């Protein structure tokens, strides 16, 4: 599998990553090489194999539905680039 410039630009958009134009050819080459490595899997017959999602086949643990955390909004929001009145600020979305 070889990717083209357009493919890399589309993937970068899906991943919400800005990529400098000058870096695109490098990504085209690197990502194509990685996909070629990965495609060694294609030759293996896995028709009857159950996919393994997790190394220890455990079911999701559930707990009682009760409050275990205290409100630390102010503490956590001190880490944010921009907040106002307890809200995170982003550029205007709705005109």
């Amino acid at each position: 599998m070889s990717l083209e410039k357009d493919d890399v630009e589309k993937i970068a958009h899906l991943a919400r990553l800005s990529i400098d134009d000058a870096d695109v050819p490098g990504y085209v080459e690197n990502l194509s090489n990685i996909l070629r490595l990965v495609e060694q899997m294609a030759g293996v017959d896995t028709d009857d194999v159950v996919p393994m999602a997790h190394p220890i086949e455990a079911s999701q643990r559930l707990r009682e539905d009760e409050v275990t955390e205290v409100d630390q909004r102010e503490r956590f929001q001190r880490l944010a680039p921009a907040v106002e009145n307890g809200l995170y600020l982003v550029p205007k979305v709705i005109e």
Partner: protein
Amino acid sequence: MFEKTLSELSQALHAKKISSVELTQAYLDRIERLGEQSNSFITVTVEQALVQARAADQRIAAGEAGPLTGIPLAHKDIFCTDGVRTSCASRMLDNFIAPYDATVVERLAAAGMVMLGKTNMDEFAMGSSNETSYYGPVRNPWDPERVPGGSSGGSAAAVAARLTPAATGTDTGGSIRQPAALCGITGLKPTYGRVSRYGMIAFASSLDQAGPMTRSAEDAALLLQAMAGFDPRDSTSIDRPVPDYRASLEHSLAGLKIGLPREYFDQGLDAATAAVIEAALDQYRRLGAETVDISLPNSGLSVPAYYVIAPSECSSNLSRYDGVRFGYRCEAPRDLEDLYKRSRGEGFGAEVKRRIMVGTYALSAGYYDAYYIKAQKIRQLISADFRRAFEQVDVIMGPATPSTAFRLGEKTDDPVSMYLSDIYTIAVNLAGLPGMSIPAGFVDGLPVGLQLIGGYFQEARLLNVAHQYQQVTDWHRRAPGEA
């Protein structure tokens, strides 16, 4: 003093031959004097360390100390540390002061250990050479022109250079064992779920696991004892008793069956490294163990499967870095999409972006079955290989890496060649098994690591097997010369 093991330091502290403040200050001075040579620390927490050391001395005086109380250690900068920058070696988190402690950090602090600082690493633990760090590469203490391995390269180099008696690391595809091998130290990746991942910044959640990086197996046993155990805050933590890891260290290896996978001794293995591994296996035979040739037929597929599964999980985990709630935000965003794209584009380094894009592609519509599901099926085959092998043998041994430490810059232009340096470690993560690397000798002055792989939750057995070897060899006591 810098050659003392954790148990020797513990004895000295309890006998009041040295105080924790004196010991901590000595290590801080040593980091100040030599730390820049290897660039193994991102942050040194001088004041906090001395506060913790004073508290440890009080505990010792009051007779309330445990075996690790007062002993310094360093944490990989992937573990959240309350009030201390936790960067994951990324520009994205350069300004991130963690608001809570990881469970591993909390448990080791509760044991009375003193944090010297946070060690350098590959950005978001993505790399095998510590060259993807935003804070610059770590240099191997055995040869400053060579890499220490990665991603826990700062932890490995700091332990090797005697800048800390012990460190924590994490291992997603070999990130404890490979740098331990290349720096000549002892590193243990426990069974998936044995050590809590809470507060450990996520890379690939079905593979990530934390473990000790030390100078001996006995030290690793001491540290793992304090790290391991059930944590309700990690949904994949295993609720299972933690054995006494030191209790079985002295067990005899007579009759131990060691499996040697032929795929780990093929043409990809450097001949000089192979000779060191063979000599280590001879030592095990002299200790009464028996070696058995085995096969892990699908192990060649571990790197391809890993480079679908790990990037897929990474692309999902790293979607949280959006420039809104914490971390890096770009200057003057035009709109919300520009804010996301430029914050992420400027905040992440090239390797992280590559992996996010590979994962995004593998999980995108039309490709999911061909890549992600296929990789999970291969993962099942790899895991089944190990299950079959452990019906025959007690432990598996082989090289931890195909060769000794490579030169800085040697593989940075070719990600695939970098990925292949983890060819002997990745399968263990895919299966979720415990694995270790211990020093087994040198090639041209560079350390070689012997890898030990055990069955699920067989950490005590691995530590026993490693300790017995370290009783009859001194490779683990060799120290790099001070430049």
